[in-house]
């Protein structure tokens, strides 16, 4: 005999939306609470790495075309900072709310979603930072910037799909919290963050196209620095990976909705 549960009234959508908002605000509020620099920390990683790579570039001779190299790498580094920030926050986004999940019936999907919503703050700070850099280097902003919201949307969808999986994985397999720093480092060097994807050796090129960040970072560079439309072929790869991850992650999420509390 299978279990059957009938509950009335059902969870309301509007309440879920309010809860999502409250969780996101809480996330933003507490992250830099009682720090001296507050939201300035969002830019610390991209700025520090931009300086480091400006130096490495002289050693390694990385081409960046007509684009000033700091601008070139800062674009990649901002996209990377957003990614790594969301992924590392996603790990504890469910397990961090253990006491709540163990006593109140809340839709678990709101926790990874709140990470994405909260990351909008970081995203805005980074976009403003990049635009300021563009002005500093006297690079004109063209209509192709209208592509930016599209790229950001794809980026956030991809991150959401990933977050669903990592947040659940950390409930059942704590290994992931040990593996993640190394995996992130690997991913960083495998992505065209501080080098152009045209530099990727021929034999790895097909593989690197399946890295969702390749299409995104190259896309950001096209629309912000080169005033061209992004490569739709590369973006299609990103979209396919996103759909695959969502196709795996969402059914698992639905399935585990009522089991997560037992495993925490």
């Amino acid at each position, binding site marked *: 005999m299978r279990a059957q549960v009938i509950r009335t009234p059902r969870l309301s959508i509007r309440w879920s939306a309010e809860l999502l908002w409250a969780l996101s605000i809480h996330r933003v509020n507490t992250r830099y609470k009682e720090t001296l620099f507050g939201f300035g920390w969002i830019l610390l990683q991209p700025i520090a790495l931009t300086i480091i790579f400006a130096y490495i570039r002289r050693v390694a001779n990385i081409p960046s075309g007509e684009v000033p190299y700091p601008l070139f790498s800062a674009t990649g580094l901002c996209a990377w900072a957003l990614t790594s920030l969301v992924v590392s926050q996603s790990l504890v986004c469910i397990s961090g709310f253990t*006491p709540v999940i163990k006593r109140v019936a809340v839709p678990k999907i709101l926790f990874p979603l709140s990470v994405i919503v909260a990351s909008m703050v970081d995203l805005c700070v980074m976009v403003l930072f990049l635009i300021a850099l563009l002005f500093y280097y006297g690079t004109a902003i063209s209509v192709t910037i209208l592509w930016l919201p599209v790229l950001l949307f794809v980026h956030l969808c991809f991150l959401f799909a990933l977050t669903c999986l990592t947040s659940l994985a950390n409930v059942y397999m704590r290994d992931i919290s040990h593996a993640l720093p190394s995996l992130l480092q690997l991913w960083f060097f495998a992505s065209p963050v501080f080098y152009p994807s045209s530099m990727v050796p021929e034999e790895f090129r097909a593989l690197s196209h399946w890295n969702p960040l390749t299409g995104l970072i190259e896309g950001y560079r096209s629309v912000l620095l080169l005033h061209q439309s992004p490569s739709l072929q590369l973006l299609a790869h990103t979209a396919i990976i996103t759909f695959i991850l969502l196709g795996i992650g969402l059914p698992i999420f639905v399935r585990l909705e009522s089991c997560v509390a037992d*495993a925490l």
Partner: protein
Amino acid sequence: MERIRLDSVSKRFSRGSGTKTLLASVSGISWFQSEWFLALDQVNLAIPDSGVCLGIIGPNGSGKTTLLRIIAGVTAPTQGKVMVRGQVVPLLEASAGMQPELTGRENIFLNGIILGMRRREIQRKLDSIVEFSGVDKFLDMPLKHYSLGMVTRLGFSVASHVDANILLVDESWSMADASFQTKSFSRLTQLRKRGGILLLVSHDPNLIRRLADQVLWLQNGRVVRMGPTEEILKDYLSVAGLP
């Protein structure tokens, strides 16, 4: 029609590693997991629609908390049929979800929403929540500077302001001082008079005597007996070797 009805409800927990549990939970095939623990075994329970208080007693590990979690919808039963009509609010460990970095006020809003209230509703009840908790002087201070009793009071106050029909209660408020205990007592009585159902888990026979009309006695995940408070308590205490 009953407010709460459980028909031969069982709940099985896995005791093995997380990976095996994950495989078993996702696939629905229990073969992946060999170590199981039966927390509830064929439990039947029906609570009619009226202001009643059901005390739940039993030794540690007898399934009391699991039963409340299933009623709260936190976890799903492995077998059986569960029917719950009405909003459930846990007054259990009412302070557990509190965030130490947030101020009292921020916690009232976050916790209120988590427990099922709407923002506007909390706004409306804010004064009453603060007054009841008695922490008005510390409202804009981070919770980490509160005493344990103050956190408990605030948690209880928020949870008891939710318009819920079913209240899950444990003794967590015993941490608060005597005057607050009296206050919360009358609050519970008041909520019950309004037609709420109280499910009270406690190891304190006196508390059960004061509040419960009926008692459910659980042991090893099974219902031993259910009936009028005095009768069940007498048998339970004699089995436990207490006067």
